[in-house]
């Protein structure tokens, strides 16, 4: 029997490729734009801002890269569910499902880490500018005078809320991957029970219908949840806990549906 760890690593390996590729693309694209901005007169950056051009340009591409990663990793996930090569691995459907989603998320976080690293590196040229050095020094001085520095930091970024926000982000990521998988697996399962004439078209139509049902369902559910709101919604932590709980619940429901479809219906080709 194959261990969860072994499968997780192999699935992660495929996704790590997209991570490196996308990070490289982001760096190259950001750099090209920065060079262009740097050498164009009266362009996007004034002379004083030019030292940060590299950082700004690379950072600008971050959301596009992250969205591209979600699309690529979700596509990779679905490919593995439908592939005999992967499905032959002796492991339970639930572990297979979890390994796939978790490897997508862990590598997504890895991409974010790389992006932070790129942010630091691309910011280095800024230290060449005297103005910026002075600015940083001044900020540093200001912090130095502040006796309750860490108190201030934890006031403006409360640790409880940061953790809740991180949890919310994770649950949301799981939700995105789960929804895509539910749509894919259920539409394919339904297609298998229909005649195989024009199966591609049939699959497409079923997909549209499912998406429609899904949107209607989310709307109604959202309205229902709004009515059911309990406690003090002004309290940030409680509101977070509430929405996280709802999201976790939906993750579990969709996850169970997906595992059931994988176990009893969906075949690898």
């Amino acid at each position: 029997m194959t261990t969860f760890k072994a499968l997780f690593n192999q699935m992660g390996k495929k996704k790590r490729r997209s991570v490196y590729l996308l990070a490289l693309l982001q760096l190259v694209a950001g750099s090209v734009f920065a060079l262009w901005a740097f050498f164009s007169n009266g362009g996007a950056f004034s002379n004083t801002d030019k030292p940060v051009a590299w950082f700004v340009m690379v950072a600008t591409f971050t959301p596009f890269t992250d969205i591209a990663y979600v699309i690529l990793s979700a596509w990779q996930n679905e490919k593995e569910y439908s592939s005999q090569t992967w499905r032959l691995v002796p492991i339970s459907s639930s572990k297979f499902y979890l390994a796939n989603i978790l490897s997508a998320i862990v590598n997504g976080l890895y991409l974010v880490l790389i992006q932070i690293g790129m942010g630091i590196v691309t910011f280095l040229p800024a230290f060449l500018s005297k103005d910026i050095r002075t600015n940083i020094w001044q900020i540093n001085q200001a912090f130095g005078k502040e006796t309750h520095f860490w108190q201030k930091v934890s006031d403006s970024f409360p640790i409880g809320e940061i953790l809740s926000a991180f949890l919310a982000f994770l649950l949301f990521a799981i939700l995105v991957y789960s929804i895509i998988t539910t749509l894919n697996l259920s539409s394919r399962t339904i297609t298998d029970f229909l005649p195989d004439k024009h199966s591609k078209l049939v699959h497409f139509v079923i997909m549209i219908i499912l998406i429609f049902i899904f949107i209607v369902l989310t709307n109604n559910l959202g309205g229902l949840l709004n009515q059911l709101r309990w406690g003090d919604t002004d309290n940030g932590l409680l509101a977070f806990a509430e929405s996280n709980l709802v999201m976790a619940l939906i993750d579990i429901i969709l996850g169970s549906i997906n595992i059931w479809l994988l176990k009893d219906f969906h075949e690898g080709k």
Partner: protein
Amino acid sequence: MNKLLEVKGLTYKKNLRTILKDVNLDVESGKIIALLGENGAGKTTLMRIIVAIAKHYQGKVLLNGDGSEVYRKANIAMTDNLKGLSDSTKVGEIEEFYQKLFVDFDSSKFEQLRSFMKLSNDMKLGQLSRGMREKLEIALTLSREAKLYLLDEPFSGIDPMSRKRIINSILLWKSADSTIIISDHFVNEITTILDEVVTVKDKKIASHLSADDIRAKGHSIEEYYESLYADEGAE
């Protein structure tokens, strides 16, 4: 010889079509068996059900009395078309993939098979010819220490010389209690190594005989197989 695989009352439908109907099959350990039938007769489907890739069937599939999917996947090695891996994947990476995901994978065995099949580790999947790809699929499958091997039309694109060497390596390496099922739509040079012949026709197992019993009646395996379709005229 004890019972290794048991298929009981198996019926499988897909896209509203019946592909297998009330199939029953008992296989003992330590055998080499041919699974013969026309293209589309359901041989591949039967293998996919046995290894628990095809789902939602009626009936039972038991390996050593155990019907669980994970147990079946862990102990059955089936040739795979490797479509789940991208064309840029190298042979060496595929070996690692198998070695990491199948605990019964024997790398030294794979190295030997790989070298006589003239596959090198840095060849990419997308560059392989059909025959080379089939060789890789067979090498990966045979490198596992499984109880049951399912080879789905393994030799169609492979030249006769290599076929003979693959057959020899099967004879050399097959453990005494493992069973190999080889599917094909015609009978070729594998006939001499067969213990048993199973034929699939009209969604069912048409016959299951010992190879030497067929010969004892004065028929060659080929003649016997062709006679099954004789009443339908020319193909």
